């Protein structure tokens, strides 16, 4: 008897340890490759030359390039997010109605979002090229003067162009999530609204939108995070130019680190970006929590 009890004790201890054993490797990898780099980055950001200093952080406030890059990031994020949300919602509502071949439309509308961002940007460089791009070529065909339309090469049109490319690539994502949200709404509230005699607009405003709110918040959260860190498409389309016209914060950090080898300053800026995305995601998550409580 004592023997078997000792055995079962050992077995149950092993059983208690099992979850930790299973989780440990993943946690170790994340500590080594997500958390340690952050700590490493803090130490790098707190050094100027070989001395400890907060110089990299104080420099931020007076660096006009940094402030401009922040402003560009906001303009880019707000403009792209609004367009993607409105277009994505419109498409989702359209496909949620009685449509033949919904599966076909849904699948093909998703193509832009699946492309590697680098390839999506190449696609648009081919289209927007002022000399032989298909857009100006086609506009010329129908009699429009395209001389001023130099798109990514023009300081005034470049930002609009990179926003348009992002909207093209990521509206499908918003559409897909919102369509899933719409299809998860049960029929009963609509039937009740019909009986109450509410108009289509009232039904949309008082039934659809409130029930869709969790999906909306999730998709806005995910898009906002991606938009604030945007790098790939702009790097390929304009490299932040012409001049500084489309330089966003990720590009400026990249340039500081890997062109000017100012790793300390790049690290300092990356913490501003990290803080910013954290604050914004906390706001969204609060809203989501209130939503699930209500």
């Amino acid at each position, binding site marked *: 008897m004592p023997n078997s009890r000792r055995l079962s004790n050992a077995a149950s201890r092993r059983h208690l340890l099992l979850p930790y054993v299973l989780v440990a490797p993943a946690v170790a990898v994340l500590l080594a490759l997500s958390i340690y780099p952050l700590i490493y980055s803090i130490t790098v950001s707190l050094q100027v030359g070989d001395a400890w200093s907060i110089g990299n952080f104080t420099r931020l406030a007076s660096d006009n390039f940094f402030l401009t890059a922040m402003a560009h990031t906001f303009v880019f994020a707000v403009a792209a997010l609004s367009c993607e949300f409105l277009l994505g919602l419109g498409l989702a509502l359209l496909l949620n109605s009685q449509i033949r071949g919904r599966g076909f*439309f849904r699948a093909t509308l998703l193509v832009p979002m699946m492309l590697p961002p680098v390839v999506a940007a*190449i696609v648009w460089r081919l289209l927007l090229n002022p000399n032989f791009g298909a857009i100006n070529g086609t506009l010329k065909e129908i009699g429009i003067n395209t001389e001023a339309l130099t798109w990514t090469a023009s300081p005034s049109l470049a930002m609009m162009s990179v926003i348009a490319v992002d909207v*093209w690539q990521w509206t499908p994502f918003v559409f897909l999530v919102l369509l899933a949200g719409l299809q998860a709404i049960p029929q009963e509230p609509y039937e009740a609204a019909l009986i109450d005699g509410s108009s289509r607009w009232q039904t949309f405003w008082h039934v659809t939108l409130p029930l869709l709110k969790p999906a909306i918040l999730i998709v806005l959260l995910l898009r906002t995070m991606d938009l604030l860190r945007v790098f790939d498409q702009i790097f390929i389309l304009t490299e932040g130019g012409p001049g500084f016209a489309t330089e966003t914060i990720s590009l400026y950090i*990249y340039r500081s680190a890997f062109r000017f080898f100012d790793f300390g300053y790049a690290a300092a800026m990356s913490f501003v970006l990290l803080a910013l*995305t954290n604050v914004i995601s906390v706001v969204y998550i609060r809203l989501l929590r209130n939503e699930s409580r209500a």
Partner: protein
Amino acid sequence: MSRALKYLLLFLSLGVALAPVYWMVTISLKSEVDHFASPPPWFSFTPTLEHYYEAFVTRSFAQYLVTSAIVAVISTLCALILGTLAAYALARFRLPYELDRKLSLWILSTRMFPAIVTAVPLFLMMRDLRLLDTKASLIIVYTAFNLPFVVWMMRGFFDEVPRDLEEAALVDGDSRLGALVRVVLPLVAPGLAATAVFCLIVSWNEFLFALVLTQTDASMTLPVGIAGRVTQYEIKWGVMSAAGAVAIVPILVFAMAMQKYLVRGLSLGAVKG
């Protein structure tokens, strides 16, 4: 809204979504003379495979393609193994101090870091470890990048498997891990496959880390190889388009194969779709 208007809008959106991609494919198939033709030939041109030949035979794009595949497959396998084990533990065991819940949230939060924030220190770390410009560095970084995603997705799939099934297996004398492998994994196999495909796509498409961590043909992935051709003085549009067209193919095949899980994967499991 009338039916006709609905379909008109839908086909218009379809055109906007697909025409740009179609245009790139035509550029990859047109001889250089046709690239600069005015009006731009959308449909009538004589197709040629010269750019594909130049990209994949004369230049190094075949090598980039192989590197991309190796890095994507190995990092996906590593993330799946580590992530599935962790997800199983987090789905099935209640740990003291709500540790299971806190760990899950912490793991998810590491996924939310903007890539550029970790790219700078990871470059310095890889430099210290003399791993710059190796496939190993990319495999390591992509494993860590995909890991939170795997944990979060698989935890959701495990939650959907009734506990009774495993408990029956445990009563029959299976060990916990035996029950996981024999009973639970077969049930979550579709979810596991979808998760794997997502990791493959993410690694295949990834650009910033690959740009920062690789320098030579020996370790460049396809996106970096393509991007490298943009910033040169003379841009080879045909070659770039050919490489771009090839880069798209596996992604589209994969995406179509797992449409059912697309919403769930893209929203990190937040919307069940």
